[in-house]
């Protein structure tokens, strides 16, 4: 008796936990971990939609292919999210290391040069 709502609610809860982590943590890498949790929550939601609201799509186009087959749009989107998340984690951690080298701290509370 699993319904889509289960997965959506799970995704929402995870998103909020990840948001909490991103907002309240001092360590930059902890913030990143919060962001990773958020991305995972979104992924769960995507894949959930793809499974429950399955699209056996007849073609919308007036030409070419008449039947698109079964579309797994949510899963494709999830693949791309994972890809981009990996890239972003790499770049972000490189930046953290660079900041650590410069300022000897990874505390985001210390990086406030744009303040008044």
């Amino acid at each position, binding site marked *: 008796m699993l319904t889509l709502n289960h997965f959506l609610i799970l995704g929402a809860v995870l998103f909020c936990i990840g948001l909490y982590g991103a907002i*309240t943590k001092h360590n930059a890498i902890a913030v990143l971990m919060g962001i990773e949790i958020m991305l995972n929550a979104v992924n769960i939601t995507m894949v959930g939609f793809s499974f429950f609201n399955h699209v056996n799509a007849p073609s919308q186009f007036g030409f070419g292919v008449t039947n698109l087959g079964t579309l797994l749009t949510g899963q494709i989107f999830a693949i791309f999210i994972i890809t981009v998340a990996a890239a972003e984690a790499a770049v972000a951690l490189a930046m953290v290391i660079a900041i650590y080298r410069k300022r000897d701290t990874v505390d985001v509370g210390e990086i406030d040069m744009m*303040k008044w």
Partner: protein
Amino acid sequence: MALYENSWLILFAPLLSFAVIIFGTRVGDMLSRPRVEASTPHEPHHAVEAHDSHGEDHGGHGEDDDDDPKVPSLSAWAKISAYVSILIMAVACIYSWVLLISSMVPSSPLPTEGITVFSYTWLNVSPLSYTIAFHVDRLAIAMLVVVTTISLLVQFYSQGYMENSAGYARFYSYLSLFAFSMLVIVFAQNFLVMFVGWELVGLSSYLLIGFWINKRSKPEEQRPSPAEANLQAFIMNRIGDVGFILGIMILFVNTGTFEFSGIEQHITQYHTSPALLGVAMILIFCGAVGKSAQLPLHTWLPSAMEGPTPVSALIHAATMVAAGVYMVARTFPLFADASPVAFQVVAWIGALTAFFAATIALVQSDFKRVLAFSTISQLGYMFVGLGVAGSEYGVGPGMFHLFTHAFFKALLFLGAGSVLHGLHHAMHKEVQDMRLMGGLASKMPITAATWLIAVLAISGFPFFSGFYSKEEIIGLALEHHDIVIYLLTLVTAGLTAFYMLRAFIQAFGGKGGKFMGLWGGPYRGTGEVHESPWTMTIPLILLSIPAIFAGYWFGFYSYVNVTAEHVLNLNVGALLADPLTWLGVVVSLAGLGVAWGIYGRVELAKIHAVVESNAFLRTLHRILYNRYYVDTLYNWIAVYVVLGIANLAQAFDQYIVDGIVNGVARIITSAGSDVRHVETGRVQSYMIGFFGGVAVLAIVAIVLITTVGK
């Protein structure tokens, strides 16, 4: 007719003289003065340098070295200034006498309503048109004669009085400017031009009173400095002008024109409400109150005595102060059409002022101040004359008294100038206190004789000129059942006689003189007093003739009334037969007699002792001597009320207005300095704000969708 059409020459002649002096001869005079400080005391009397040099203190020659700067001798340029001015004024004077004589003839081509002699359209915005227009009619000619004659005599006199003065050329330029300004008023055909002339005479008066600009004030004698006096005169005139302008504007708004004839035509055609006209005319009269020094705007005239005496004679006796009377005479038909209250106001203010000023003049010890208050009092008479005349006599009585008064008052002032000139030479400092004079008749006989003639004229002594003009006014007051005005004017006549003879005896006579103290006697001052030079005595003699005989122009009333009303002439027979006339004469003679008896027989010091010992007399003397404390009241108002309001306004501006402006700025800057802490530079606090907004928006959206969507 060409004679009348060219009379604009009289108007512009003094202006030409002014221009010539200012741009020509005075420049020459200034350039011809020595540049270095001449420090040698050539003249025993006037050892002061020329120019604005505050040179060495030649102590021992009096404190007035800076007050009245003199030059050792007048340059040729300065003398030419005087000759130019006098010559031009003489031509104008002769022209105006010719006009007078030719217009008295019945076959004169001059129409009763006058002709326009000069007109320039200044602004033409249809349907309104403003012109600078001058016209001449018989009233104007009568006034012209007075103005030009006395101007000429005063200018001639000033040659002697202002001898060796450093500002000789400047003085004549101002006199010419004044003559021009006065003639603008006389020739004016509409209110606009008259107002221009009004202000111009105010300006000339300002310049002339303040002629000795560096002179100091003498607070112990209650005398302001000329710089303060001329400002007082100008400002008081201005206060009166507020009412004047308001009145003119009311008339303009209701009739659409400034012309005197145009306004009168409009009023008769459209039957303008008398109440409105009454208000307008009372406001216009305010201007006359200021210019002619009536109550309550009278305090500037005694202060105006700080100017040279020829100025006092010309401006503050005969001509400028009479401008108010002339203006009321010009607008007489408007007054007649207005509600009777207007005339009542004129008459009452005149009567009250006459009495008020006469009481003050009783105790003044400054020679010129007595004459100043006498002027105020006689001007009051003129306004009474205008106020009670009604339609049978029109402007006749008031203008007649102006006519005669001009001559004997000018004579009084010029005589006073002669006395002061002599005393200045004798005592080496400026002396105006009558307590330091006495017995001058034997030393200055011509001055004394002409002064006596003028005293008799002003007192209304039978068959002198003042008798005819004054008694007629007093009689008219009774005829029109204004009992209080009648009594006031009657008592004032007695007081006038008293204080004028008192002044005469204090200056020229004294106990022990001839004719029971009238002529000669002990001299209370120091030094040798001589009679004045011929340049000063000739005008005195010349003026004494009209002082006696000007009153015999019995056709004056019908001559001077130009508003086509049938006026009666002065009925001399009725005047002489009326017993009330002789009552007035008795009052005047009583005044003369009391003065003669007190001041001719008793020493001055003893009189003062008697007054001081009696408490009632002492307080009365104090009140009158301080001029009913009106001056102190005005001073108090100026300092506490006017300046108080000004300080209040300044405080309001500084604290409230600026406070609001600066306060707003301060609020914004403080808000900014508090709000800047929001920008922490930390991403996480920004994210809190971000997601907080998201949450709020989401809730709002949900609420709206669930409530509205249904």
